């Protein structure tokens, strides 16, 4: 017996590695985010960087929802509600915190968060950044708390029932936030100094929204959190907790029989997903400079559900890719570029890939060829007839979604990750079977 214990001990990593093991995701995140902000950022147009930023926030939302909807198989429809909780908490701390600590609600950050016009003189990280990032984390924690409170009683439910409860949660959040008192505007900052903290933090503007916030969100912060979210979810998927999640998705009764505390694991998944959604809410609020609960209702939750379903339930890379696609696609359809060059290149590439693998499959080639042809003809007709294609872009967008779901009902990558698909016919069979 003691030999077994010793053996087990010798397998666990040495004590000094705790700190590096804890910090490497953060280091990786800072490096990648720094590269995006300071190397790629200055070389792309403001529009491209705006789309990238929105895509980043959507990635965080989609990947975190994957933990609940994908890994654990629980259908949550209130993800935007957690975003609203986190967003409002982060916004109120940043806004009123700035007023109380710095005297004004103006921007007080450094180069990393400068979004204003012209060059910025100052430190890389300012006091405002610390407040902002701290508030985002507190926002995440608040959302996680909300996730715990909602999750504990309701996660004993299944399927449709849970969906309705989470939907209800999102609506409750919206209505509560719309019932809050008026905001103290920046030009009345002096009045705010006399109001006690607990009262001040609740002045969220009600139905008018919480406006005129200082904007701190840049590509750096967004992609730092994107990297962290991705690493955490990937490591989670391959951990014992993650396997418990997957087992619940596959068969709840079997999981229970194997000793998985179903409710506890569901709540865990819920709390974790809510945390990331809350942080994304903070980034969202301080990107727009305003947050309005009316815009974060259940329709918004559906946007994220679509991303998760399209990516494949349980696939992190799928959700990431779907978030990127669904952010870019509506923008792209405003003004459709010629498709056939891209389509031809794609066809040739696919044919080459198939030749390499030594197996010819006509169906995917036909799908691509037909899609390209249809889109190109539609575009030509619109140009020739003087029809403004932008007027129909949401119809096109929806039909592309339908095509994608019909040709790939299990989502882009199914339950697996992108790189697993590119191996020989998927050498890692579904891990969730445990």
């Amino acid at each position, binding site marked *: 017996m003691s030999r077994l214990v010793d053996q087990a001990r010798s397998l666990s990593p040495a004590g000094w590695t705790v700190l590096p093991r804890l910090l490497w995701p953060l280091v990786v995140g800072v490096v990648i985010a720094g590269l995006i902000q300071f190397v790629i950022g200055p070389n792309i147009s403001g529009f491209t960087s705006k789309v990238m930023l929105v895509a980043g926030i959507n990635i965080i939302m989609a990947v975190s929802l994957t933990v609940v909807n994908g890994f654990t198989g629980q259908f949550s429809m209130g993800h935007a509600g957690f975003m609203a909780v986190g967003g409002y908490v982060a916004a109120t701390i940043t806004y009123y915190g700035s007023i109380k600590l710095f005297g004004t609600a103006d921007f007080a950050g450094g180069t990393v968060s400068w979004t204003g016009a012209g060059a910025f003189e100052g430190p890389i990280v300012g006091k405002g950044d610390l407040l902002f990032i701290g508030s985002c984390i507190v926002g995440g924690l608040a959302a996680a708390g909300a996730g715990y409170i909602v999750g504990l009683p309701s996660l004993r439910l299944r399927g449709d029932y849970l969906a309705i409860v989470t939907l209800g949660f999102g609506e409750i959040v919206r209505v509560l936030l*719309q019932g809050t008192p008026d905001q103290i505007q920046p030009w009345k900052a002096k009045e705010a100094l006399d109001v006690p903290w607990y009262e001040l933090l609740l002045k969220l503007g009600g139905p*008018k929204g919480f406006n*005129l916030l200082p904007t701190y969100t840049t590509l750096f912060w967004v992609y730092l959190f994107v990297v962290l979210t991705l690493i955490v979810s990937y490591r989670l998927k391959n951990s014992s907790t993650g396997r418990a999640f997957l087992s619940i998705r596959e068969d709840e009764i079997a999981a229970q029989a194997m000793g998985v505390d179903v409710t506890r694991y569901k709540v865990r998944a819920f709390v974790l997903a809510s945390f990331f959604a809350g942080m994304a809410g903070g980034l969202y609020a301080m990107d727009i400079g*305003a947050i309005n609960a009316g815009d974060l209702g259940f329709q918004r939750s559906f946007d994220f559900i679509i991303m998760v379903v399209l990516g494949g339930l349980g696939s992190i890379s799928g959700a990431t890719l779907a978030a990127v696609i669904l952010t*870019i696609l509506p923008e792209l359809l405003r003004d459709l570029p010629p498709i056939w060059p891209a389509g031809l290149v794609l066809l040739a590439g696919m044919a080459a890939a198939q030749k390499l693998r030594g197996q010819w499959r006509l*169906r*995917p080639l036909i799908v691509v060829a037909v899609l390209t042809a249809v889109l190109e003809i539609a575009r030509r007709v619109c140009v020739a007839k003087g029809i403004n294609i932008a007027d129909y872009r949401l119809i096109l967008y929806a039909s592309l979604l339908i095509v994608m779901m019909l040709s*790939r009902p299990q989502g*882009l990558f199914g339950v697996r990750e992108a790189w697993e698909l590119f191996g020989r016919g998927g050498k890692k069979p579904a891990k969730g079977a445990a």
Partner: protein
Amino acid sequence: MSAMNLIARTAALLMVGFGLASLGCEKPSGGTGGGGATKSGETGTPGSPKEDGDAGQIVIGHYASLTGSEATFGISTDNGIKMAVEERNKAGGVKGRQVKLVTLDNQGKPQETQTVVTRLIEQNEVVAVLGEVASSRSLAGAPICQRKGVPMISPSSTNPDVTAVGDMISRVCFIDPFQGLVGAKFARENLNLSKGATLYNRAQAYSSGLNTNFKEAFTKMGGQIVSEQAYSDGDNDFSAQLTAIREQGPEFIYVPGYYTEVVNIARQARKLGITVPLIGGDGWDSEELKNAGDALNNCYFSNHYSHEDTRTEVQEFVKKYQEQYGKVPDGLAALGYDAARLLFDAMERAPSMSGKDLASAINSTQNFAGVTGAISIDENRNANKSAVILEVVNGQPKYKATVKP
């Protein structure tokens, strides 16, 4: 299985390819050229997209919710703006240059609004931006315009915060506190009433804001609010609130809601035997009021303009709009029209088309003769103008009075 894999890869690659292609195309092509991505929603002189950035045309942008739940607002406004642009181009343009309008849809989402405004400024290289109806989306677009130094005129956002974003942002409509004041003034002075009740939508910024402002103004003028009742989005039964109001016996009820709610409220109130007048705001402005039948007789609401106003600007505008779109223009169309015309007026006066010059020209506008009244931009960049009071007669709004600020 591998067929499935291939389809997956196909779809993925296809989409990524699209994405990269799009982003590649959307980088500004540098120099003076405006790039190719400016075909959407153009009005005015047709021209091949490559000529866009040339000195010949002045490009202005409009962002609006042309899809989504508030699409009618966006479309009305866009119609008004389009008409103003066409009219101006026929008359020779601004400073001899033709004006081109680029309208982009934001789906009624704030995040989308920011993307769209960035796109207008960077890709279409607009010199000024018009938009939006809803204050929450104007508040999303405004910081971008302020940052990039491009003037923005909001046609109909009434939340006071919008223009507080900075000196590039102004508007041509009056703000919420003023409309509350107008309602109070009309009730107190024109109708000589002193005991009122209010019934408002608690979940709506517009409604709850107007309620607060009305209450403040009315009490200040010596009136008394005997009952204050609220409802929420989607409510259809107002009998509980109306019964509570009836017990207090007010001389009128202030209902700052949207027309859909107002029609129900009026009918239910008459059924409960409440005969006092209802008074409301511009949310009432709709043809749907006729659904109330005679329930809304002897009721009044404040509005930006009346199509029955006998001023020549109004009559000409209404006639042209009817010819072009086949219906009577609503307040939003009139405000869109005014916003565009005020912008052209400022362009004529500005020494150059740079953001700074243009903004200071807009902000120094005095007594501009708009369809919705004489507009002066005050030091907070809000429009200082009069409001009209309309009386509902058998579901048809009739011009009653003009209330000056």
